[in-house]
């Protein structure tokens, strides 16, 4: 019996990393998302799927402190503050938490990169923002990360605008992982990538989740990516979560009419 209790504490990792309650966002009369509640633990990958216009990106923006919700709470277990509603923090505190504890990978890499500084500097910058000053160490760390995302190292001193879309996306991913965040938000992160690079990044993200306890919220419309990456899925339609559960259960035995339609529409290769 004590054994069970002990194992449970290990299992639950006790506190949630993120706790969302009754989150809604309205744009005037239009609903972005409504009444979303869920919890996440360290090392967990949550996939959010649904067709375009279903409220995935609105939800992601509310969760990541970029768009104040109309109602509800977004509580994050921040390393400096413990479990707090991120919208109760002062602007500077929230920004510092975002820098230290989070990463955000945009669908369009140009939204997440600084186009006027080199690719290498883009990757090293988050470390500099956290107060690191040893140039040699930072350069080594960025080389290491650029290697991990399989970027051609001879190009690191070039500006990102000279890169292909796939290269830009890889730089953006490296930039968002280098400071060992605890939670990464990803909006269609592998959408514009070659399948081979996509596979490498999926493997890399899985490794980080396992070894560092990184948690991720992954918005995608690619069911194959969702199946390989996400532990749990939330299916959204018209701003509401219509189904949630373990990824393989949601995809293999979908209950809601919309999820059944979504799953049966996937092309088999």
């Amino acid at each position: 019996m004590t054994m069970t209790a002990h194992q449970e504490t290990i299992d639950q990792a006790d506190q949630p990393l993120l706790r969302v309650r009754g989150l809604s966002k309205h744009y005037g009369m239009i609903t972005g998302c409504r009444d979303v509640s869920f919890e996440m633990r360290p090392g967990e990958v949550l996939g959010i799927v649904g067709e375009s216009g279903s409220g995935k990106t609105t939800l992601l923006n509310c969760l990541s402190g970029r768009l104040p919700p109309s109602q509800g709470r977004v509580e994050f277990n921040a390393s400096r503050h413990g479990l707090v509603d991120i919208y109760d923090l002062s602007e500077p505190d929230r920004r510092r938490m975002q820098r230290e504890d989070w990463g955000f990978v945009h669908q369009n890499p140009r939204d997440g990169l600084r186009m006027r500084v080199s690719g290498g500097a883009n990757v090293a910058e988050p470390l500099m923002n956290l107060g690191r000053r040893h140039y040699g160490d930072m350069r080594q760390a960025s080389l290491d990360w650029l290697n991990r995302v399989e970027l051609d190292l001879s190009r690191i001193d070039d500006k990102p605008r000279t890169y292909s879309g796939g290269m830009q996306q890889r730089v953006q991913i490296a930039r968002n992982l280098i400071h060992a965040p605890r939670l990464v938000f990803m909006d269609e992160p592998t959408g514009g990538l070659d399948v081979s690079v996509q596979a490498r990044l999926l493997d890399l993200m899985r490794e980080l989740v396992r070894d560092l306890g990184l948690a991720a919220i992954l918005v995608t419309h690619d069911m194959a990516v969702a199946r390989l990456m996400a532990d749990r899925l939330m299916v959204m339609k018209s701003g509401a979560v219509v189904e949630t559960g373990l990824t393989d259960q949601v995809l293999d035995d979908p209950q809601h009419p919309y999820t059944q339609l979504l799953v049966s529409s996937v092309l088999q290769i």
Partner: protein
Amino acid sequence: MQQSKHNGHAPSIRVTNLKKQFTLHNQGSIEIPVFESLNLEVAPGECVVFVGDSGIGKSTLMRTIYGNYLASGGCVEVQHDGAYVDITKASPHMVAAVRRRSMGYVSQFLRVIPRISTIDLVIEPLLGNGVDPEEARSRAVSLLRSLRLPEALWSLPPATFSGGEQQRVNIARSFIREYPVLLLDEPTASLDATNRETVVALIKAALDKGAAMIGIFHDQDVRDAVATRHFDVSSFKMDMESAA
């Protein structure tokens, strides 16, 4: 019900009054009944083999026990850390924990991230449970050897492998950990006779160590070699009328 050979042990799996039907909302909400009022217990050291005609729901039952399919009623309790967890009602976190440590599942298909080497795929379940990478690797090597997967393939991703080779990778991934509960859905379907024997030996060794197993095997020889008991899924068939 027949008694198991490990008498006195609490069952590792306890299925009570289980019911499953599918509702296809986009095909006029048609109801497909599968089974109902299904009871089953599997004790440590037992290998219960599901029998019944094709399409009767053997795989559906197995997947419902694993939590891959959602039960329509009843419960599925699995021993996890000395207590029962009801898979049909547990939180996703709990089901994931049960699958990580207590209940393995071997399907006919290998579904993995592309471009990862075979050996890394095989040790993955161990790393996920915090086993030292060196030790994980040495266990993987001896397992792949016993499954006669050519050493030249170990560093390659299995995408280009033959069906039988992929299946052996899948088996290695599941047998590298000693899961107390193991579900086997046609693990020997595309194997030749020699490799089938190896898998039978792996299954028997796990049973001797007290694993509780449920299997679906179309191969008569394998079935005869490992089954401690047959379980006829067709006797719980749900009538069209009782589907609600």
